[in-house]
C-alpha cells in the first residue's frame, strides 16, 4: 500500500464529487462526459505549442478546451437545427477524434499514450514529483490539492448563487444573479477538475467519480447541503474500498474505484429507504392491497341485507362478483379478516363493527 497514491485518489474523489453534485442536479452529466473527452484536444494542442509535457500551459489549454466544448454545444443547439443530446454527441466525438489523430500522426514519439489518456495511471503517481517548500511531493497530488481548494473555495463563496442557479435558473436571472456567468464558472471548474484528474483516472472513469457519489447520496437526502456532505463521504468510502480491492486482487486502481462507485450506487438504488426500488415496490404492493380491501368492504357493505346477499356475499361465489381470481379472493378475505374488518360465518361474509365503521366513512365521502 502506498499512502501517496491513496491520498491522491482521495483528493481526486473529493474534488470530482463536489462538482458532480451540481452536474447531477442541473442535468449536465453527459456534458461533463463530453468535457472529459475533449480536454484531451486541449492538452494535445498545448503540447504542440510548448513541447513540454509538464508545462502548466497544458492545464490551462485543456481547461479552456473544456469550456469551449460547452460553448460549441450550446452554439449548435442555438441554431435550433439540432437537439442537445445529438449536439453533445457530434461535438465530443469530433474533437476527441481530432486529438487521437494528432497523437497518432504528429506525436508518435511522445509519451502521450492513448491508453493512459483514457484510463489514467494512479500507479505512476509517485514517480512524477515536484518540490513544494523543500518537501518532495507527487505532482498529481499537489495539483489535485490545489484544484480541491479552488472547488471548495468557489462553492462556499458562491454557495447561494450556485444553489439558486441550480434549482431555479429563471428566478436567478430575474434577481440579477447572472446565471450564464455562474454556469460558465461552474463549467470551468468541471473542466479544470477533469483535466487535473486526467493523469490519475483518465477521461472515462472520471465521470464515474463525478456522478456516482451524488447519485448515491440523492437516494437519501433532501437538501443541497446534506447531499454535498453525503456524496463526499460516499466518495471517500468508494475510494478507500476501491483501493483496497485493487491491492487484494492486483488490478487497476482507477478501475476498481469506478467499479466500487457503480456498486455502491446499485446498492443504494435498490435498498435505500423510501427512494429505493425495493422500498417503492413494497410500498406499491401495500397500497394496492389496501385499495383492494377497501373495494371488498364497499362490496360487502353495499350488498349486506339485500335479496341477492347469499350469492353476492357467499364465500364460494363472491369472487365472480368481484371479478378476482379465486386465489386472490381467498388471500384478500384472509387479509381483511386478519385486520378484523370482516367475519365469515357459514360461508357468508359479513362486516365486523370495525368494517361497518370503515364502510360508513366511505359513504360519507
Amino acid at each position, binding site marked *: 500500500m502506498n499512502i501517496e497514491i491513496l491520498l491522491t485518489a482521495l483528493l481526486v474523489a473529493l474534488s470530482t464529487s463536489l462538482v458532480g453534485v451540481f452536474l447531477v442536479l442541473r442535468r449536465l452529466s453527459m456534458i461533463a462526459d463530453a468535457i472529459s473527452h475533449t480536454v484531451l484536444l486541449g492538452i494535445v494542442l498545448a503540447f504542440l505549442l510548448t513541447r513540454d509535457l509538464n508545462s502548466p500551459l497544458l492545464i490551462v489549454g485543456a481547461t479552456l478546451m473544456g469550456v469551449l466544448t460547452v460553448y460549441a454545444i450550446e452554439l449548435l443547439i442555438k441554431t435550433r437545427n439540432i437537439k442537445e443530446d445529438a449536439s453533445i454527441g457530434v461535438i465530443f*466525438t469530433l474533437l476527441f477524434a481530432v486529438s487521437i489523430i494528432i497523437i497518432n500522426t504528429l506525436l508518435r514519439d511522445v509519451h502521450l499514450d492513448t491508453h493512459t489518456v483514457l484510463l489514467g495511471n494512479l500507479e505512476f503517481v509517485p514517480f512524477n514529483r515536484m518540490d513544494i517548500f523543500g518537501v518532495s511531493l507527487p505532482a498529481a497530488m499537489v495539483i489535485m490539492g490545489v484544484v480541491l481548494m479552488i472547488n471548495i473555495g468557489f462553492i462556499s463563496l458562491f454557495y447561494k448563487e450556485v444553489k439558486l442557479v441550480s434549482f431555479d435558473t429563471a428566478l436567478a436571472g430575474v434577481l440579477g444573479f447572472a446565471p450564464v456567468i455562474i454556469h460558465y464558472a461552474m463549467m470551468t471548474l468541471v473542466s479544470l477538475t477533469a483535466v487535473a484528474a486526467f493523469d490519475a483516472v483518465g477521461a472515462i472513469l472520471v465521470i464515474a467519480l463525478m456522478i456516482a457519489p451524488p447519485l448515491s447520496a440523492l437516494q437519501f437526502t433532501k437538501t443541497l447541503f446534506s447531499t454535498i456532505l453525503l456524496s463526499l463521504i460516499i466518495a471517500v468510502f468508494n475510494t478507500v474500498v476501491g483501493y483496497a480491492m485493487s491491492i487484494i486482487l492486483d488490478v487497476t486502481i482507477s*478501475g476498481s474505484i469506478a*467499479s466500487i462507485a457503480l456498486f455502491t450506487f446499485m446498492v443504494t438504488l435498490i435498498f435505500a429507504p423510501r427512494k429505493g426500488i425495493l422500498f417503492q415496490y413494497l410500498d406499491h404492493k401495500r397500497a394496492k392491497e389496501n385499495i383492494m380491501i377497501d373495494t371488498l368492504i364497499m362490496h360487502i357493505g353495499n350488498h349486506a341485507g339485500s335479496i341477492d346477499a347469499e350469492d353476492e356475499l357467499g364465500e364460494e361465489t363472491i369472487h365472480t362478483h368481484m371479478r378476482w381470481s379465486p386465489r386472490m379472493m381467498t388471500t384478500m378475505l384472509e387479509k381483511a379478516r386478519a385486520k378484523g374488518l370482516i367475519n365469515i360465518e357459514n360461508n357468508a361474509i359479513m362486516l365486523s363493527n370495525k368494517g361497518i365503521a370503515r364502510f360508513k366513512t366511505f359513504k360519507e365521502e
Partner: protein
Amino acid sequence: MFEFSYTLRLVMLGTMMLGASAGMLGTFLVLRRQALIGDALSHAALPGIMIAYLFTGVRSLNVLLVGAFLAALTAMAVLELIKRRTRIKFDASMALILSGFFGVGQVLLSHIQQSGVASQAGLSTFIFGQAASMLRADVRVIMLISFVVVVFILFFYKELKLYVFDTPYFNVAMRGERFMSALLNFFLVLVIVIGIRMVGVILMSALLIAPSVASRQISNRLVMVVLLAGVFGAVAGFFGSLASARIDGMPTGPAIAVILGVIVIVLLLFSPRRGVIANQIRLKRYKRLMKRYKPLIHLKENSADALSQTTLNIYRNEGLIDQTNHLTTRGESLIHRLMGGVRP
C-alpha cells in the same frame, strides 16, 4: 490513389456497411432524443468482452462479441429499470452506467493482463477499434448484421415512424411501446457490438448520431433522412478507410468520426433550406423588405395622409397601390406575405 488492395477493399466494405446501418438506425435514436444511449451502451459492452474471454479463454471475435452483446443488454436493462422505477435523471444514469461498466471492464482487463496469458494481446483494441486488421470472416458478420438491421427498418418502417413521432398514439394504436423500444434497442446493441470492433467504444456514437443529424439538415421527410443517413455513413466509412490506408499512422475510427463531424458542421452552416447562413440571409432580406414596406402595411387600414408623396409614387410605380391610393391585389398579397414572418 484509387487502386485498392484486397485488405483495403475488405476494410472499406466493412466500414461502409457499418456506417450505413449505424447511420440509418441512429436516425430513430436521434429523433427519440436518446442519441447518447449509444455512447453508454458501447462503453458498457467492454466488461462483456473481458468476461467472455475469461470464461472461454479464446480470442475468437464471435465469442467476444456475444459477451459484449450480453453486457450491453444488461446495461440497457439497468437503464430501463432506473428510468421506470426511480426519478433519477436519464442523463445521469447514462453517464454512470457508461463509466461504471467501463471501470469494471478495466478491472477485468488488468486482471487478464496480470495473469499474463499469451493470447490476451489485442483485447484492449476494442477501446479504439481496429478496422485495419479485419478478416474476411469479420466482414461477413458485419454484412449479415447490417443486412438484418436494414431489413428490420424496412419491415417495421411504418411502426418505427409512428413510434418516434407520436409514442402516445402508437401506444393506443399498436399497444407495443415496450416491445418496439426493446426491438429498437436490440438492434442498436447489435450494431454497437460490431461497431466497437472497428471504431472503438468512444467513437461509436459518431457513427450513430452524425449521419442522421447531417441528413436532417437536407430533408424533412423521414424516408429521405434515413436513406441519406445511410449514404453519409457509407461515404464516411469509405473515405475514412481510404485515409487510414494512405496516411501513415492515421487510425480508421477517428478518421471516420472527423469526416462525419465535418459533414455535419458544413451542412449546419450551408444547408440551403435550414442552414445557419441561409437563415441569416433570409432574415436580412426580410428586415430590408419590412423597412421598405412598413408604410404600405400602415396604408392597409389607414388613409394615405401620413405617407409622403415620394413613397406613394414609389408604391404606385411598383403597382402596389392604384391612383386613389388604395391597395391593389398585388399590394395585398405582398402585405400578406410580409405579415407571415420569415419564411424559407
